[in-house]
C-alpha cells in the first residue's frame, strides 16, 4: 500500500480540473444575465438587504427581470422580506427552480430552508479551528448556488453581501470583474469611514464601483409628510464615488419589510419615490 508521500499528483481526483469545471458551469449558468450588481457596504446595519430588495422591486416595477442572491449566509434576511420563507427548492431536470416573490423577483436565500432560530453550520473534518476554513466553505457554497440554480435570462442579478470591508473584497475577487458594486452608507461618520475603507479596498481591483446610496438619510414623518433629520450629521456624505441618491428611513416601510410586502404594493410616499429615483439612477449608470 502506498503512503502519502508516494502519491504523485492528487491520486486521480483531478481536483484542479474539477474546480475549473465548476467555474465553467458558473459562467454557463450566468450567461443569460446582463448585469451582475453586488450591494455591499463594509458596515453592518446600514440597510443593505432592505435597499437591495426595494431597488429590485422598483426595477421590477419597470418591467426588468431581476433576481437576488442573498449572500449573507450567516444572517439571511431576503427570504423573510421577499415573502419566500416557506418556499421550497424544487429541482428541475438540470437546475433548481428559483423561488419568486409575489411581484416575480427570483430570490435565493438560505433563510428559505433554515429556520431563523437555527444557526448556519458547516460540516467539518477538523473539529474546531473554524476560522481557518469557514470562508472557503462559504465561497464553495456560493459557487454551488450559482451553478445549481436556474438564473435564466435576467436584466440584473443582485448580490446582497454580508457586512465587512474585507468580505466585500473577497466577493469581488470571487465574482470576478464583471460584477459592479453599489455601496450603502448612513449619515454617520463611523459608517462613512468604514465605507470609505471599502471604496479604497475595491479600488485596487478591476471591479467597477457604480456609486453609493445614503440610506436612513433622515426619516419620513407621516404626521407632517416631511423628512426630518435622523442623525446628527447634517453634512452630506463625501465619498470619492458618485452618489446614486439618498433614501429616508420609514418605520412603516420597515414594518412592511418584515411582512414581505412587495414594492409594488407600497404606498406612494416620498420614501418610495426616493427608492424609485435611486433605481433609475442605478439603471442609467449601468447602461
Amino acid at each position, binding site marked *: *500500500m*502506498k*503512503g*502519502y*508521500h508516494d*502519491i504523485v499528483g492528487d*491520486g*486521480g*481526483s483531478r*481536483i484542479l480540473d*474539477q*474546480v475549473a469545471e*465548476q467555474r465553467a458551469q458558473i459562467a454557463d449558468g450566468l450567461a443569460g444575465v446582463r448585469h451582475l450588481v453586488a450591494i455591499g457596504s463594509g458596515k453592518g446595519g446600514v440597510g443593505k438587504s432592505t435597499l437591495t430588495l426595494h431597488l429590485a422591486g422598483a426595477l421590477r416595477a419597470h418591467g426588468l427581470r431581476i433576481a437576488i442572491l442573498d449572500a449573507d449566509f450567516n444572517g439571511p434576511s431576503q427570504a423573510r422580506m421577499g415573502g419566500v420563507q416557506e*418556499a*421550497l*427548492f*424544487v*429541482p*428541475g*431536470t*438540470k*437546475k*433548481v*427552480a*428559483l*423561488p*419568486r416573490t409575489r411581484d416575480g423577483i427570483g430570490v435565493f436565500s*438560505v433563510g428559505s*430552508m*433554515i429556520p431563523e432560530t437555527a444557526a448556519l453550520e*458547516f*460540516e*467539518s*473534518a*477538523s*473539529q474546531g*479551528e473554524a476560522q*481557518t*476554513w469557514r470562508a*472557503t*466553505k462559504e465561497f*464553495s*457554497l456560493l*459557487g*454551488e*448556488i450559482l451553478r*445549481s440554480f436556474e438564473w435564466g435570462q435576467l436584466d440584473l442579478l443582485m448580490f446582497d453581501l454580508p457586512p465587512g470591508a474585507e468580505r466585500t473584497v473577497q466577493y469581488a475577487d470571487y465574482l470576478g470583474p464583471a460584477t459592479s458594486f453599489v455601496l450603502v452608507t448612513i449619515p454617520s461618520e463611523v459608517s462613512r469611514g468604514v465605507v470609505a475603507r471599502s471604496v479604497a479596498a475595491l479600488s485596487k481591483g478591476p471591479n467597477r464601483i457604480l456609486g453609493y446610496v445614503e440610506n436612513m438619510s433622515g426619516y419620513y414623518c407621516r404626521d407632517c409628510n416631511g423628512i426630518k433629520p435622523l442623525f446628527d450629521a447634517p453634512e452630506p456624505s463625501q465619498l470619492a464615488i458618485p452618489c446614486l441618491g439618498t433614501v429616508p428611513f420609514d418605520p412603516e416601510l420597515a414594518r412592511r419589510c418584515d411582512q414581505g410586502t412587495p414594492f409594488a404594493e407600497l404606498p406612494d410616499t416620498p420614501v418610495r419615490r426616493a427608492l424609485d429615483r435611486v433605481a433609475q439612477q442605478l439603471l442609467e449608470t449601468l447602461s
Partner: protein
Amino acid sequence: MKLQTVAPPDRGSLSIVYSCPACGYEMAMLTNAYETQAVQSLGVKIGPASSEVGGKCPFPGIVPASDEVKPGQAAESIPVRWTAAAEARLSNIPSFVRPMAKTGIERFAQERGATEVDEKILDEAKEFFGM
C-alpha cells in the same frame, strides 16, 4: 468497507486502510485534518472516477457525506419513497441545503396524499410555488 489497518503517522500523514469484505480490494485514506478540510471546502469529490477503479470494487471514490442520515434521524424520517428519476433531480440541489429541501418536498407530497415523490410531484411543487 471494513477498517483494515491504521498506520502510524508518517511526516504528518495518517494512513487508514479499508478493505472490501467481498473481494478484498483495499483503499487507503491518507490524510491530515487540515488537508482534508481544505479539499473538502472546495466541494470536489475525492478519489479516481469509478471507471478508473477498473470495476474491481463496488465503492467508487468517496462522495460528500452531507446527505447521510445521522444517527437517530432514520426513525423520524417521513416514510415517502422517491422514484429514481426524482432522486436524480434531487441531486441538482446544492448539497448543503439538500436534506432540508428533501424534507420539504416530502411534506409537500404527503399533504397531497402521495406516498411517493416522482417527477409529477416535483412539477406540481414548482407550479404551486409559482416557479
